[in-house]
């Protein structure tokens, strides 16, 4: 325990240098902006800024990009509350009661409780990360390729199963991402795969390129090609932004529960902050003494989900730092950034590069304070951003995407691939395929394949290696329970309903 604090003190020493304070501030500021702007999420922003971070020190670059991640969770609530357009998927549920509160002239308290809840959660989950990560890292030293493969498989099946839409479409999206991941020279045998003799493809398709193409471009296309339609009225911030004593009393419970729930869900692979906010809303509604107020402006319906999605960020950093396994599209990008700097996240990182990890953790405490100070008084200013005409906003997004693609390898071929995959992503989105699973699969695909093959060659091609070791056996059982069993149950149940329907008619 004392070691944790001495490490943390060193981390603060690193994070409190003027340069790193500026990077943390830029990170949370950009994060708030992208959180506010509809259609641009943390993944897009981080993907677009990867070329910028090439030139930075690893510590500064990672402080900047992590700041964007947790900062965006703050900003997402603003649009949910004021125009009923969530800036982030994780803020979708906040629209239910947040917009309703704003319509009743209580936009101020709604925004305040979201900001304060976010601060509580950000601080709590950083604390959780700090205490849990070293412990998990010391366990993870014992993991072999079989365990790593299964953990990645778990993340992939979870992301297919637990996204909020059609599980089948999420599965197809995951497999699509995996199929793209296979492009390039196989690192184990140097065999060319899916390169069609094109030299640009032999190193594989750049992950950041695909992330930009599948996430940023479709959003820009869809908004620029939108027919003018109905918009929800923008609510003004009127009256005091401060919460009343009653608001505080009703918010404290959701802060505590949301922090714990969000953190725990964030730690699980494959589930991001979005599910945390949905679950928190459901939980608050069930626990409430007046559930009928939910959907009509209950402050708990804002405080809980906004706390939970911020706590999810700290949680999501745990598997990233300790195992090097990202659980979501955003952490997948952060993993890519680590690797770009020549760092391999995982249990060894705590020994080989502790100052980096602890500086990031320290910067998260600092960034959360900055966000609170930045957001409470300036929320009105950020809300003005919503008036940016879509044509200007999205042509800027496209220009940034092209720049990001160019700056990866400085060639036109990458930009043309960006164009092609952007159109593919657009069509897939129109058909209702979620894109985040494809992005996660893209990063995990190649890692998972390498671990699978390494595990198999260690075991001389014997598949039983996955159930002979206790940890891997536990993982196999867990994957079966969360990913396979629910489908069987559902199939059996719908069969039965079909049969009842036919006999009934």
């Amino acid at each position, binding site marked *: 325990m004392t070691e944790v604090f001495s490490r943390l003190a060193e981390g603060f020493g690193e994070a409190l240098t003027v340069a790193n304070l500026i990077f943390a501030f830029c990170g949370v500021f950009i994060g708030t902006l992208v959180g506010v702007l509809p259609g641009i999420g943390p993944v897009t922003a981080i993907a677009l800024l990867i070329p*910028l971070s090439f030139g930075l020190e690893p510590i500064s670059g990672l402080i900047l990009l992590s700041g964007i991640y947790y900062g965006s969770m703050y900003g997402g609530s603003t649009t949910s509350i004021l125009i009923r357009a969530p800036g982030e998927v994780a803020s979708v549920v906040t629209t239910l009661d947040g917009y309703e509160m704003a319509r009743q002239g209580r936009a101020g308290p709604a925004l305040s409780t979201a900001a304060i809840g976010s601060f509580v959660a950000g601080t709590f989950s950083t604390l959780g990360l700090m205490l849990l990560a070293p412990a998990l890292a010391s366990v993870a030293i014992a993991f072999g390729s079989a365990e790593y493969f299964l953990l990645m498989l778990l993340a992939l099946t979870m992301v297919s199963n637990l996204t909020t839409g*059609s599980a089948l479409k999420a599965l197809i999206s995951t497999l699509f991402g995996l199929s793209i991941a296979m492009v390039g020279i196989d690192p184990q045998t140097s065999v060319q*795969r899916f390169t069609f003799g094109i030299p640009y493809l032999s190193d594989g398709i750049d992950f950041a390129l695909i992330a930009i193409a599948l996430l940023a471009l479709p959003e820009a296309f869809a908004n620029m090609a939108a*027919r003018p339609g109905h918009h929800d009225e923008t609510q003004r911030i009127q009256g005091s932004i401060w919460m009343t004593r009653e608001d505080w009393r009703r918010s404290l419970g959701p802060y505590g529960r949301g922090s714990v729930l969000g953190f725990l869900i964030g730690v699980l692979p494959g589930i991001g902050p979005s599910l945390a906010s949905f679950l928190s809303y459901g939980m608050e509604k069930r626990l409430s003494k007046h559930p009928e107020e939910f959907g009509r402006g209950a402050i708990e319906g804002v405080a809980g989900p906004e706390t939970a999605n911020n706590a999810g960020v700290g949680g999501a950093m745990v598997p990233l730092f300790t195992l090097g396994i990202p659980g979501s599209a955003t952490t997948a990008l952060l993993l890519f950034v680590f690797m770009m700097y020549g760092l391999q996240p995982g249990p060894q990182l705590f020994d080989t590069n502790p100052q980096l990890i602890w500086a990031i953790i320290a910067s998260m405490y600092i960034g959360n304070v900055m966000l609170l100070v930045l957001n409470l008084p300036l929320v009105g200013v950020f809300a003005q951003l919503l008036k940016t005409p879509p044509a200007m906003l999205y042509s800027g997004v*496209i220009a940034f995407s092209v720049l990001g693609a160019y700056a990866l390898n400085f060639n*036109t071929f990458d930009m043309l691939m960006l164009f092609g995959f952007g159109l593919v992503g657009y069509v897939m*989105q129109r058909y209702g395929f979620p894109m985040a699973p494809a992005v996660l699969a893209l990063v995990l695909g190649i890692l998972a394949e390498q671990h699978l*093959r390494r595990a198999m060659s260690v075991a001389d091609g014997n598949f039983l290696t996955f159930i002979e070791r206790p940890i891997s056996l536990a993982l196999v059982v867990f994957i079966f329970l969360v990913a396979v069993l629910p489908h069987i149950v559902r199939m059996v149940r719908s069969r039965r309903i079909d049969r009842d329907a036919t006999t009934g008619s």
Partner: protein
Amino acid sequence: MRSSSEVTERSSEGGEQGGAPPRFGGEAAAGAIMLLFALAYLLTAFFIPESSFGDVAVGPKAVPVAIGVALGIASVALLVRGLRATVEPPSEDDAPPQDLRKLAVVALLLLGYILVFVPLGYAISTTLFMMGATTYLDREHLLRNAIYAVVFSAVVYSIFVFVFGVQLPAGILG
């Protein structure tokens, strides 16, 4: 009817996913397209040469083939589900209906931008693209669009080149 409830859930994801309901013929078409992709992928995967090292437990071909097969099966499942659904899922209002002509023009502008990016240089090509795209979508604010386009490319160019030291093509200005 299961699919309609799923579409409703999907639409609640709004922000990142665009809340897109099926528009171009629904799930059957989506399944058919993905199936074609899976078959082409699988065909290519079968031609991956086996490892020259010989004794690896799992070769370079196995995982791509497995992915292709799984994608094929999942696509067929989607195709079948789409064909069996008697009622098209109701479309949701929060996904903006698309004007395909606008999409085509924006896509062509982007393609043109990419092609002149290196020859003309970052500053000029970006200004032209921003001018073109904003003016096509919003003809009433010519001056504002022009100022925005120039300021945007100048600021971004300066930040990348002078602050971060990323080399951007100077093109005919260089």
